[in-house]
């Protein structure tokens, strides 16, 4: 446990000891701040059915930085250790491969959570200024942030896997972005294959992050995506471990 704690702490510290985390945080707040402002502006144009929370989590200003976040956060995780050779002192210390993989994943997940934390402040400010809640019910906050966490877990674990495949950060980043985009685009299948039938449409709606977010940000929490994301995360972490262990045979 002490070994795991040390590994995790180093992961988090290395992100905050370099400008990376701060730069990402700055731009994320800039874009989401604008996004929140836009959401509030919608309300000023008269009565609407959507709440601020719904409009906050369902715009291009939310999805675009959201998707860009993962390659940026995960690409260095393993690649940098391979490239700089620090993997050698790391793996000649008495640490297990699973400890390293989990520490890296949970470290970057923590960073991801910290990055989204300030957005909660927006809703607090809204409540403080207008004495109105930004959402219809508590479930809307819970749903949105729960889905944010679940999607984050899955995409971060995918990023971990891509980073464990190569010693080049950029390659890892591009792979991560491509694979995540593919998953994200499943929602668009219904547009492409709109007339092909019920099944296709069903699949696309179930897996589409956009549709899921529409539901969750209304406070409608579906257990299917929850299970799906957890299982996918576990699978990606398992693959990461396999690929990380395979480095011994590759070298």
């Amino acid at each position, binding site marked *: 446990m002490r*070994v795991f704690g040390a590994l995790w702490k180093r992961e988090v510290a290395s992100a905050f000891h370099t400008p990376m985390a701060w730069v990402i945080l700055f731009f994320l707040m800039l874009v989401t701040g604008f996004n929140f402002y836009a959401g509030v502006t919608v309300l000023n144009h008269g009565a609407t059915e959507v709440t601020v929370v719904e409009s906050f989590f369902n715009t291009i200003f939310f999805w675009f930085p959201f998707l860009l976040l993962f390659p940026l956060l995960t690409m260095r995780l393993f690649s940098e250790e391979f490239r*700089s050779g620090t993997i050698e002192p790391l793996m*000649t*210390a*008495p*640490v297990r491969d699973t400890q390293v993989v989990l520490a890296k994943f949970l470290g970057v997940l923590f960073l991801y959570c910290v990055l989204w934390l300030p957005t909660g402040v927006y809703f607090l400010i809204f409540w403080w200024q207008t004495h109105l809640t930004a959402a219809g019910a508590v479930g809307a906050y819970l749903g949105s942030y729960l889905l944010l966490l679940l999607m984050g877990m899955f995409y971060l674990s995918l990023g971990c896997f891509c980073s464990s495949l190569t010693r080049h950060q950029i390659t890892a980043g591009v792979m991560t972005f491509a694979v995540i985009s593919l998953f994200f685009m499943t929602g668009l299948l219904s547009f492409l294959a709109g007339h092909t039938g019920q099944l296709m449409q069903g699949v696309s709606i179930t897996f589409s992050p956009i549709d899921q977010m529409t539901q969750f940000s209304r406070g409608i929490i579906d257990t299917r995506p929850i299970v799906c994301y957890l299982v996918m995360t576990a699978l990606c972490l398992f693959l990461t471990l396999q690929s990380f262990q395979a480095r011994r045979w590759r070298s």
Partner: protein
Amino acid sequence: MISVQGLSKSYGPTQAVRDLSFSVDRGEVVGFLGPNGAGKSTTMKILCGYLPADAGEVRIAGFDVFGESLKARSRIGYLPENVPLYPEMRVREYLGYRAALKGVRARRTEEKVLDALELCHLGHVRNQLIGTLSKGYRQRVGLADALVNEPDILVLDEPTIGLDPNQIREVRSLIKGLAARHTVLLSSHILSEVEMTCSRVLIMNRGRIVATGTPGELRKNARVPLGGSVRLEARVQDPDAALKAITSLDFVASATMTGEGGEWTSFEIESSEGDHRPELFGEAVRRGWIVRELSSREATLEEIFTSFVTGDPERESVSSGDSTGGKQS
């Protein structure tokens, strides 16, 4: 402490280590000597559990490196070649992190880190970012990392490479000091370094151990015709006549004039087994030469090394010029 049996490892078609066997006892300082690409680093990486071997068995303090990897790894302090470190960490923070990884208890970490800092003379840079340190300091941070949990065995891959002469001297004396408490296996391609620090030398070439022994034993067993090489420098009337006179002595195999023209003339004399300096001196006295130097040359480790590695004693200076040169007696 370390026992290696039939170790083999290849990278694709390149065989880096071939059927290697050796052992190192507690308290020994053993030097791994060989040209670049001899398989030293590969062997060390396998010993430290970083690389798997294709075949063979490695035991570290009785633990199988492949089967009981964690136990074996916790008994080794490893200094990798080129010392990869995290540039964004501070020296003390890094050593604390490494101590935690190596299972040092939380309340003892502080003390062990301070010990390591002191031992490696890092006290005044302990709060500096590793990325801003010079090569010599980075090397010492690597060494402090290897030492921090006081492992039984230290494996140091080229500990003095890239350092300036002052730093080299410091690191060497540090290693000598460590010998009292640790078993040390170090690699080098600088011969004088191994001669100065190690009690035993393993010479490796192309993945095999080609010779092993103390520097003295190696000298005795070298495949170089070292019977006796004597250098004579004297004031003679007629150098050519003198050379002829020397060559005609029955124990002389061959003689060459190496310096001529000035007041002093020097000769390199290859003779049969044994010390023939008294006879040579007698001859000089008989002929009225005034002798300034009469010395027999012992083979340096460098020549021995070259003879083992290439089988060609003529090619000298494999090392990067740091060696002590010919030993005169």
